[in-house]
């Protein structure tokens, strides 16, 4: 993939101020129109000529798309900067999201990039996806036919593709409240800091003493879409946690993922590292569920 480092294609540009105007513009300009939020992914994709929109609709001036509030869990406006989400989640009950954002870029990217942008771009390696999947996030989309809400796990349909219609815009991400006795964590394996993940993993769990009462596991960069591993969740839920059970579960993780060979890693390497990463993340979340730090 050659990055020409310049934008060669011509396009029209709009910066509307309301969701209604965004939808109208998307409708008027059809398939060639793209929403731009921070642009940190989109502009590079355009430089690589992976994408050539005829029209960009900047949503950063739209009112009511940038907020973080506690309301039956956590509600985050889709155009909220990664910087703000990261700061909010630091030492919060959603620390896995802090860890994911910390790993996905550096200050200049956190200052420009948005959480909705990371999701709508739909990279298999989107680092905010695994934590949001284990927090059972729902996403709210608005389009010309009104509003709909769906689980994030039903949002991704393939590499860089989602259920978003050409005239739709993501407006909100809604995370479940974690509740008591909950712990969560995120880890990724990459070559250097802020690099794209080879494997990423998030775990959310609840414990009572030695028993895990609830468990959700998600991995990124090991399948066409960020994925939950429900077989493993079912294996762990309601069970007393022992080293041997977690070891067995990590073997299943390695069987369930569907990685590919690419420039960053071989599929075989990803399978093995997925198992280890899952194990480390699980124990981290497990310790955190009783107030442990690591």
């Amino acid at each position, binding site marked *: 993939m050659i990055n020409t480092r310049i934008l060669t294609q011509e396009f029209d540009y709009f910066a509307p101020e309301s969701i209604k105007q965004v939808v109208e513009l998307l409708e008027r300009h059809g398939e060639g129109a793209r929403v731009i939020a921070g642009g940190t992914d989109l502009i590079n994709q355009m430089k690589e000529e992976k994408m050539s929109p005829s029209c960009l609709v900047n949503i950063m001036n739209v009112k009511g798309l940038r907020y973080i509030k506690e309301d039956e869990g956590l509600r985050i406006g889709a155009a909220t900067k990664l910087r703000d989400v990261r700061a909010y989640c630091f030492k919060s009950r959603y620390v896995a999201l802090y860890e994911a954002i910390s790993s996905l870029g550096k200050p200049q990217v956190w*200052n420009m990039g948005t959480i909705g942008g990371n999701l709508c771009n739909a990279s298999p390696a989107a680092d905010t996806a695994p934590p949001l999947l284990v927090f059972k996030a729902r996403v709210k989309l608005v389009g010309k036919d009104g509003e709909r809400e769906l689980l994030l796990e039903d949002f991704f349909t393939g590499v860089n593709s989602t259920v978003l219609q050409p005239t739709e815009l993501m407006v909100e991400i809604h995370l479940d409240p974690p509740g008591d006795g909950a712990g969560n964590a995120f880890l990724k394996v990459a070559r250097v800091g802020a690099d794209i993940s080879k494997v990423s993993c998030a775990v959310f769990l609840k414990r009572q003493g030695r028993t895990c009462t609830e468990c959700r596991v998600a991995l990124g960069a090991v399948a066409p879409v960020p994925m939950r591993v429900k077989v493993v969740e079912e294996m762990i839920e309601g069970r007393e946690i022992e080293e041997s059970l977690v070891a067995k579960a990590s073997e299943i993780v390695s069987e369930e993922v569907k990685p590919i060979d690419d420039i960053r890693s071989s599929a075989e390497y990803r399978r093995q590292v997925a198992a280890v990463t899952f194990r480390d993340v699980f124990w981290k979340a497990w310790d955190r569920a009783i107030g442990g730090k690591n």
Partner: protein
Amino acid sequence: MATYKLELKLNGEKLSAQVLAHENLLSVMRNKLGAKEVKNGCNKGDCGACAVLLDGKAVNACLTLALQANGKEVTTVKGIGTEDQPHPLQESFVRHGAIQCGFCTPGMIVSSKALLDTIPNPDRRQIREGISGNLCRCTGYNKIVEAIEDAALKRKS
């Protein structure tokens, strides 16, 4: 081809220019607004040489469309301090030999200014995180980290 009017404040001065939608902030700064202190390194968001403050927050000008900066305030290294009145960070970089070839310096100063604006007394880990989006191939970073630490101390006293 449609052109758009771009209005922004560059280092405190109100400016406007006609730009095309696909021109990025980096090229408009260098080629239309005369701000050559903004450096073109990798032009894909990896090196931070083109970092500027956009409404006080460090961003990479190469990953920003010029129109995304419309109506905003852009600050470059020249807006942080001048030759006659350098910012404590700039003095500190010189004193500590935190500049070798100098190409990363405008971006480094911008990122460290943004850091000190949020965290006035950063520890070494926070300093390293603050400049983690800026690559320097000469200094090995130690002198830069020391310079920022020293500037923060000097500002406090």
